[in-house]
């Protein structure tokens, strides 16, 4: 990803505000995220990281401003097209959002069934991605019977199984020990190399200190630092 490569922004935000009542969860956020880029979003608890990701897949709608995703303006996407928009994303939710009454395998397979894939293909892909996430032997367990880290790995598997253009990962290693976390980060790197754009919200100092990718620093809903890819070292 050299500086010479021509930029193709896949996500563009223009003066975006998100208000909950009187509170600004996001205020005047403008940013571009390039096609195939790897970006970290960080900042203290309640800074607006999850909100930023939610706006991208239209889990929430903006209060003000505009967002372009892969060329289409989100406020112009009709309700009926929202499912299509969401299939461009693979989201690792901060609270996992696994369906408690479906097994790990069924949770992952659901994404492919929703997209209308053939049953044999669904089985092959879902099992493959669960294996990569190290959940091969537990794929028939229900989420309540999985450990926190195991649930997180299922959530990761679900996010990547559909080969999405953009992966939004909200604290994807929060419940994982460093070895498991490294496996997940490697998995995501593999996806980036196959063309996906990766956006990760995280507190993890260890991960942030090791990266040479761009880090967007939020505080109180505002972008405090756009952290261009060149400034590797960050002072929090």
């Amino acid at each position, binding site marked *: 990803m050299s500086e010479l490569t021509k930029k193709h922004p896949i996500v563009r935000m223009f003066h975006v505000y998100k208000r909950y009542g009187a509170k600004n969860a996001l205020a005047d956020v403008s940013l571009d995220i390039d096609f195939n880029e790897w970006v970290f979003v960080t900042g203290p608890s309640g800074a607006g990281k999850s909100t930023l990701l939610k706006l991208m*897949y239209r*889990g929430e709608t903006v209060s003000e401003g505009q967002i372009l995703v892969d060329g289409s303006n989100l406020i112009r996407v009709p309700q*009926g097209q929202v*499912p*299509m928009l*969401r*299939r461009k994303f693979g*989201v690792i*939710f901060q609270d996992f*959002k*696994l*369906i*408690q*009454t*479906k*097994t790990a395998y*069924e949770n992952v397979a*659901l*994404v492919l069934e*929703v*997209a209308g894939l053939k049953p044999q293909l669904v089985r092959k892909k879902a099992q493959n991605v669960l294996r990569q996430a190290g959940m091969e032997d537990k794929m028939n367990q*229900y989420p309540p019977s999985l450990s926190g880290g195991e649930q997180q790995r299922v959530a990761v598997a*679900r996010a990547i199984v*559909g080969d999405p253009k953009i992966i939004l990962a909200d604290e994807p290693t929060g419940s994982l020990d460093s070895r498991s976390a490294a496996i997940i980060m490697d998995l995501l790197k593999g996806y980036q190399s196959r063309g996906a754009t990766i956006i990760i919200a995280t507190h993890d100092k260890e991960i942030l200190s090791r990266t040479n990718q761009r880090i967007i620093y939020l505080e109180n809903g505002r972008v405090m630092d756009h952290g261009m890819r060149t400034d590797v070292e960050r002072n929090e």
Partner: protein
Amino acid sequence: MKDMADNLFITLVTIMTIALSILIASAGGLLFVNAGDVMNGWKKGIRIMAYITPETRESDVAGLRETLAKMSGVRDVRFISRQEGLESLKAQMKRQMSLIDNLDINPLPDAFEIFMNPEEQTFEKIETLAARVSALDSVDDVEYGQAWIGRFTQVFNLFKFIGITMGILFFMVTVFIISNTIRLALYSRRDEIQIMRLVGATDGFIQVPSYIAGLIQGAVGGMVGLIALYIGYLAISANIEKNFSSYVIHIRFLPWNVVLGIIVYSVFVGWLGCFLSLRQFLKNN
């Protein structure tokens, strides 16, 4: 799948609710069908007696018959001579037979018995016709059978009205209870539905299983209700036959087209319950 066990309970609740609604509603239907049979039997018995003035000549009687037969609503006219009248009176009065035996002369007049078309046989029509017959010159007096049957028809019509009103009410109640049962079932699945939407499921994808379940539940519920009704019918009709031989009217089950209609109806109710609850649920969640 674990949700099968959870859903099984909710599915059973829905089916039982539909079955019970159908059972109660169709038991009402059964009652009406049989009450209607009895009413029709009675209606066939209604006739107007036109007593002929003693002065009427033999030749005029034929003319009178024609006149009566042509009146609107009249199905049949039968001449009853005074002799015939006395015979039937004797037959009617067992105890007081001696009373008639002691008669020197026959005090009864000749008469026409007028039968009406059952379709046109409302209380008002009977009264109108009777008045018109009574206005005829050769007719001395008119007696229209058991007037209470006319009254009874009105009571029956009132009950029919109540029945239909209750039927409509019951339809709404059924749809209400079922759509609520389904909504509560959806309610306990709302996290699941929200997550499905987040991973890109269309409303159609989310709804289809609910609709299929709704239709199946409707059909199964309807059939279970009808089977329960049929068992109840067999028990009651056996009981009636045992106790009353063929004295009381023979009760019959719902005709097959009504049975079919009820099943179609219960499938429709299952669908409507889904439709209403899904529409509202997907809008709000």
